[in-house]
């Protein structure tokens, strides 16, 4: 690694710090949104005064707000995200236990989105306003508007209940039973990938159209370079940055969208955990899930930033 790369990585890491601090403030602030006395709300309507006092003490709600925040933050830094109010299990342990199930379908969906979205985008952009382009564009518009959990239900109805090719619900461990895990993850990943495919197709199409209609591509044409060479050597190189940005965006969105998909396929992931905890007012768990997911997104953004610099020499000079 050269000195410059090190400097670049270092400066990006430093830039992440304020984002991290703000994110912890926002996650901590979630509890401040609870109307009235949070301890009483969390304890429920039938709780005794004792239980309310116990919860207040457990969450440190009797302290001033800034002390509560510092307390929470110092715990979070040490990997202590408190314990579930309902099961008593440490939050981080529960989140990490479920995370692989979520990440498996998210990454599978992301891979599908890229593998299908990129060729479709190229196909559409090289046939602008032709029949293929119109077909691809309208299918993509459909893909953005379909509720993913409904798509999941349709897939279950057809491929799992009807044809019996896939299991209807559940998940398996990727490390212990890799084939069964992939088999379980296929339908959820397909349902989840739909909007990602559509998004990548649309963005790549418009970026590629911009590049292909630019001055220098016209020059290349005039020079007598064949269309395929222009596309592969010049066009795609220039849209790779757009693709990187879109993939980051799609990753963030897929990580959120998996929540409804996990409900349809009864996958014990972080999405079903956050829904159950929000319903049961188990706020330490809600905060924990959001915190871990935000950390993943920030790490992903950092990686994309660095890849940007690697792909585009102009960026690293800034």
């Amino acid at each position, binding site marked *: 690694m050269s000195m410059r790369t090190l400097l670049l990585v270092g400066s990006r890491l430093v830039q992440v710090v304020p984002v991290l601090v703000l994110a912890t403030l*926002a996650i901590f602030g*979630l509890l401040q949104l609870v109307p009235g006395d949070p301890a009483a709300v969390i304890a429920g309507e039938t709780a005794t005064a004792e239980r309310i006092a116990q919860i207040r003490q457990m969450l440190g709600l009797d302290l001033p707000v800034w002390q509560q925040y510092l307390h929470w933050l110092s715990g979070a830094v040490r990997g202590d995200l408190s314990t579930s109010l309902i099961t008593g299990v440490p939050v981080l342990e529960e989140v990490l236990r479920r995370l692989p199930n979520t990440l498996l379908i998210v990454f599978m969906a992301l891979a599908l989105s890229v593998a299908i979205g990129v060729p479709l985008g190229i196909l559409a952009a090289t046939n602008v306003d032709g029949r293929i382009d119109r077909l691809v564009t309208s299918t993509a518009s459909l893909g953005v508007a*379909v*509720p993913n959990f409904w798509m999941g239900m349709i897939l279950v109805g057809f491929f799992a209940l009807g044809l019996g090719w896939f299991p209807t619900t559940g998940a398996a461990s990727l490390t212990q039973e890799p084939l069964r895990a992939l088999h379980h993850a296929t339908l959820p990943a397909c349902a989840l990938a739909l909007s990602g495919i559509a998004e990548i197709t649309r963005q790549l199409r418009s970026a590629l159209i911009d590049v292909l209609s630019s001055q220098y591509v016209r020059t290349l044409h005039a020079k007598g370079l064949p269309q395929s060479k222009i596309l592969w050597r010049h066009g795609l190189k220039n849209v790779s940055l757009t693709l990187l940005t879109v993939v980051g965006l799609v990753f963030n969105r897929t990580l959120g969208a998996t929540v409804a998909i996990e409900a349809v396929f009864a996958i014990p992931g972080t999405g079903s955990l956050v829904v159950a905890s929000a319903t049961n007012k188990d*706020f330490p768990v809600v905060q924990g899930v959001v915190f871990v997911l935000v950390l993943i997104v920030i790490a992903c953004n950092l990686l994309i930033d660095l890849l940007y610099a690697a792909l585009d020499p102009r960026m690293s000079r800034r």
Partner: protein
Amino acid sequence: MSATVQQASRRKRRSRLRTWLAGDRRAAISLSFLLLLGSLSLLAGVIAPYSPVAQSMDILAPPSAAHWLGTDDLGRDVFSRLLHGGPMTLYASFLAVSVGLAIGLPIGVLAGYLGGWVDTGVGRIIDTMLSFPSIVLAIAVTGALGIGLTNSMIAVGIVFSPGIARLIRVQTMIVKGDLFVDAARTFGSSTWRVIFRHILPNAIQPVIVQVTLLLATALLAEASLSFLGLGVQPPQPSWGQMLARAYTYMEIAPEQMYAPGLAILFTALAFNALGESLRALLDPTRSRND
């Protein structure tokens, strides 16, 4: 402006609308669909053949003359529930987008107009908020505010606000440098007047496009949250919640999931198509011949 000039400009605007809709079939269809949905939603109580919550012994019945779309697991008329789900959905979408605008617009305009450390600070906050997976954040905020349609849509609106703020901030920064803003300031216009009379009207166009697209996003978010039991509470009908019930009975009555799903799909499609058409219409790089 005199009355005649105003009238003329209004007439011109109306004719421009007509030319646009005549030239853009997609926009015309989408707008008609949404207007139809709006009227059906207003008249749901009058048109619906049954009460949306009236139960009967006739459960999970297939479509018939009496029940056009069949009945659900409690013997309620699916068509009536679909009609009554319309106003819920529209209310939810508009509420979420309004909350997003109410928070995002002033913050974005101020940050863009004032610049300096305010802008840097707001920019950081926006970047941070955008790195939260949106639905998860909406669920977390809903959990804190309390479960229910209005709270969950306020949560979705809060999640929308950083995106709106970012968009209007950039637009404000562009418009701020224009000559007419300098001119207005030289003539002694107050900051508020400059912002409201000069900057906002000239910076708002991309926001209008974004709002139309966000209506579709809000609609899908409402459906997801109601499906997960965090939005509309039973027995109130909503399309997402109808899908949640259909899901439970999927093995016996799979056809239950089609009507609400298609309703969500078509409405989201209409908002998106309208947004895309508006974007094309307002795009200054595209030549307009009017």
